[in-house]
């Protein structure tokens, strides 16, 4: 009889011990993949600890509107429109002692974009094109493609000195060395691929000729020379000997007036008053 009590007490203790395991959060859904909207929910079970409140975190930052002081073991977060900016890791956090949390991943297609859709480069110089990506998860693969007249040719890193591709999960950079007007003008498309799919964006490259600015410059110089010629010719033609008079006229008193006895001297005449 005593043995029976001891065994049952032991079994009871073991059962009790097994009953007070770590609290469990059941997430619904466990993962959001490529949906336009979703409702994330967390259900805290098997916990006898008091709940002081709950909130949600997005990529490590608190979601302000989700802050709640209810003691319910159930919390939801509504995502109405899932875009690349709202994708990421969401954590529901229950304010127990200690805190318990669980993560739900919201995954979307990568958002590939470029800051400058039109790039300029100088002839024989290098041209740099940059694409970056936001969202979760970040692309694991980047590829570049050159499109001319609808025909796409892939650009492979390292085949020649001409093209260099440097990629990180956030950003990819295509550098074209020794730009040439004949071959390098066109559209360049960057593709970013993650586990869900691929997105892309397009950059148009323009190559400026080294001598492009020379023509307007020569035009302006020609205009200056013509103007100066016109002014000189006009002067010579209009008053060939008044040019001498002007020097001595009182209208420009900066000039010395020592030879002051010419006909046009109004000032002189005044003096004589």
């Amino acid at each position, binding site marked *: 009889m005593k043995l029976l009590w001891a065994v049952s007490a032991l079994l009871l203790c073991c059962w009790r011990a097994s009953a007070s395991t770590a609290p469990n959060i059941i997430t619904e859904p466990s993962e959001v993949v490529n949906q336009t909207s979703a409702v994330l929910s967390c259900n805290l079970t098997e916990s006898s600890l008091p709940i002081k409140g709950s909130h949600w975190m997005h990529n490590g930052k608190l979601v302000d509107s989700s802050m709640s002081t209810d003691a319910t073991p159930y919390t939801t977060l509504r995502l109405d429109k899932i875009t690349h900016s709202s994708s990421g890791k969401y954590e529901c956090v229950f304010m127990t002692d200690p805190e318990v949390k669980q993560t739900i991943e919201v995954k979307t297609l990568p958002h590939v974009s470029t800051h400058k859709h039109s790039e*300029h480069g*100088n002839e024989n110089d290098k041209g740099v094109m940059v694409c970056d990506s936001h969202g979760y998860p970040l692309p694991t693969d980047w590829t570049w493609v050159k499109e001319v007249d609808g025909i796409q040719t892939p650009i492979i890193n390292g085949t020649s000195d001409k093209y260099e591709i440097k990629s990180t999960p956030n950003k990819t950079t295509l550098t074209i060395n020794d730009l040439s007007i004949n071959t390098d003008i066109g559209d360049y498309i960057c593709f970013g691929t993650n586990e869900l799919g691929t997105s892309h964006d397009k950059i148009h490259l323009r190559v*400026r000729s080294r001598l*492009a*600015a*020379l023509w*307007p*410059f*020569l*035009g*302006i*110089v020609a*205009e*200056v020379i013509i*103007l*100066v010629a016109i*002014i*000189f010719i006009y002067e010579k033609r209009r008053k060939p000997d*008044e*040019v*001498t*008079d*002007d*020097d*001595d*006229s*009182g*209208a*420009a*008193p*900066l*000039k*010395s*007036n*020592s030879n*002051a006895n010419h006909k*046009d001297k*109004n*000032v*002189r005449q*005044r*003096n004589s008053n």
Partner: protein
Amino acid sequence: MTNHKPEAKSRSDEAAEGPDGGWSWPLVGALFVSTSLVFGLMRSLGVFFVEFVQYFEESAQAISWISSTGLAAQQFFSPLGAALCNAYDTRVVVMTGGFLAGLGFILASQATCLVHLYLSMGLISGLGWGLVFTPMVATVVANITRRRALALGLGFSSIGIVSFIFNPLFQFLVETYAWRGALLILGGLSLNIVPCGALIRPQRRPKAPEKVDSESRPSCAEVLRRVASYVELPLLMERPYLTYTSAVTLLNVGYFVPYFHLVAHSRQAGFSDYQSAFVMSAAGATDILGRVASGWFSDLGKFRLLHLLTLWTGLAGVFIMLLPVSSVFGSYAALMVISLLYGFCSGAMTSLVFAVVPMIVGVERVMGALGLLQLIESGAGLLGTPLSGLLKDVTGNYIASFMVAGGFVVLGTLTMTTLPHYFSCTDPPSPRRRSHDDNDKSLHFELEQISRSPSDAGHRGVQ
């Protein structure tokens, strides 16, 4: 004196409409173009600096030295330009200056390091600008007597007007041609100063050296004396000129502060970026208006130009001091009104500042006087903006900077009131240069009576 006045006026009419009276107004056009290509260009170089920072991978401070060098060179070489005009032909000097200014930019387009830019865009172009600006202003001052202030006001209004055009234009040039190509084109544009210089009538003989014996080898002392006379160094010994120069220098210490700090101050006072920028643009617009209006009004002859100048400078100083006060109360309307008034007064001031100089030194010495004035007041600029920046760093806001700036302007105004014969209602006879023969003497006396207009003063103010 009043008896002579109507006669003098009719004579000045005659002088203005004399043999080349009709020629004087194209000179104003030439002043308009050349001023816009000197100062308007200088102001709009900001677009290039962004490119330089990226290309040369230098700090913004190192890049901003380019424009500081250019401005300093322009001011420093002003007496040189004035001296060369006195010694040789104004037309040749201005045309050479225009050529140098263009050359500087053309060389800059081939620059491979920052030092090249300092030397080409800074030094060479600055030298060219120095040879252009003072001679052009002095020529206009000398050739137009009755409507001097209006002519100057019109000429200087170009800076404000052109900056509306140049900023987007330069942006477009940099986009289309890269900064090298754009600098090349700018060099070509600067060459347009050469036709402006060609509009100046050629001079036949240099000033004053007849008295010097034509020995085959003039002694050192003689050469120095001649140089000093070309640069008009003796002016520094004269109290009126010295007083005026110090007044203008004081003005320049404070005058520019609002242009540099108004936008930042408005933002700090809590207004949006757009509102702050708009305040600046509005002040710029009234600046242009003030230049022309004040020029026109001054030439009506109702008041002495010197009195009008002190009025505008005094008001400008007061408004500068009121600027932080208006924004402290958070009222956008008050800030806008004070800025508009400040813009108008500062523009009004600039068109008169140069026109007063012939009154003080006589028309003949205007060239040298302007050159020296530019050189001396360059120091003011070097002092003013860093000082205001320092005050802002120390106190945390712009109130002290504006107060000090306004204080300097008011101080300059007070200094101007110490000019001899300030409080008389009519202009005193301006000093005569000791000329060689009697004809000249009486001629100059007539001219000086006629030409009592304002001159010199802050070419910076002109900006």
